[in-house]
């Protein structure tokens, strides 16, 4: 694995952070593309593992970037990656809040939301697809992914139970 260019990583993540409408799901594929495929800093499996753990652990899912940063460059990586992902959105939200947007429903605001919403949905679906491609190497794993989708759409089950089930399925060799 090559040496990690932390400033470049931080810049890239900071730029991506402003596209993360609805959360990190939308920008996941490009984070993966950047650290795994373009720069070969970590393996696809390490990336997927970090994300899986972030989902399982308490706290916001976005915090998986801390683990990702750690894998890339220890404390410096963890801090840089986290700040890059949360910084710009915080500033934007603060700005919007500070300006006391009494009327967020301007025609321009509606157009931006109406335009970007479908794109964000496409990005999120891409994320899921790419995660599935890198995780599901055989049909039982694929079936588990589909089962998860079905249960999440049909029930109000807490996702953590599914993650636990996944861990057990993996350990017992079903996956």
């Amino acid at each position, binding site marked *: 694995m090559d040496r990690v260019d932390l400033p470049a990583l931080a810049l890239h993540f900071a730029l991506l952070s402003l596209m993360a409408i609805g959360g990190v799901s939308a920008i996941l594929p490009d984070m993966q*593309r950047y650290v795994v495929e373009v720069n070969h800093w970590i393996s696809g499996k390490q990336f997927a593992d970090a994300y*899986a753990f972030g989902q399982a652990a308490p706290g916001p899912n976005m915090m998986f970037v801390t683990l990702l940063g750690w894998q890339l460059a220890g404390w410096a990586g963890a801090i840089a990656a986290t700040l890059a992902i949360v910084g710009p959105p915080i500033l934007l939200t603060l700005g919007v*809040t500070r300006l006391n947007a009494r009327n967020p429903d301007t025609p321009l605001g509606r157009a931006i939301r109406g335009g970007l919403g479908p794109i964000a949905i496409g990005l999120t679906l891409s994320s899921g697809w790419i*995660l599935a491609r890198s995780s599901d190497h055989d049909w039982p*794993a*694929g079936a588990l992914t589909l089962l998860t989708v079905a249960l999440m*759409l049909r029930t109000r089950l807490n996702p953590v139970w599914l993650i636990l089930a996944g861990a057990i399925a*993996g350990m017992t060799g079903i996956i």
Partner: protein
Amino acid sequence: MPLPQPPIDNTPDTDAPNIGPLDLFLAFSQLAMSGFGGVLPWAHRTLVEKKGWLTQREFVDTLALGQLLPGPNIGNMAVMIGYRFAGYTGAAAAFTGLVAGPFLLMIAAGLAYQTYGALPLVQQALSGMSAVAAGLVLATGLKMSRSLKRHWRPWLFTALALTGVGALRWPLLAVVGALAPFAIAAAWREQD
């Protein structure tokens, strides 16, 4: 049609019960580490049900705005709620409370992963968890798509984004940069 009000009145609230930065830090720390699987239910439980800092309506409206702004929903909410009660310091305290615990937890996980990550059992467990995580993200995307209008244009942009990033693996910034102006212009024209 009357103009909608902002989710919460963001002018710092002088009549509010004294909710200071420390209170915000502690409250958000608590809800971040409360449970597995998702912060939002705990946020609701803590902020609305237990402490009564927000009404149900305020919570929902703040969440809606948080979802529209880039970045994680709960993070945006922390900033907005923190600012409301204690200005910039409040926003900082709330957000720091939200991420401090998880940050350290992730570091601990990283250390554990370095030591135990190569063990076959751990690898297998993580493989199973990854398959589930993929399903969770797909489900999120599908739930989001329920909100798409029955018009071909939004669906087209969804499909283009999905193709560009998901299938062709083009850089996200390029795909969004190319699609966004058209999507926004189209949405703008549709308003008339």
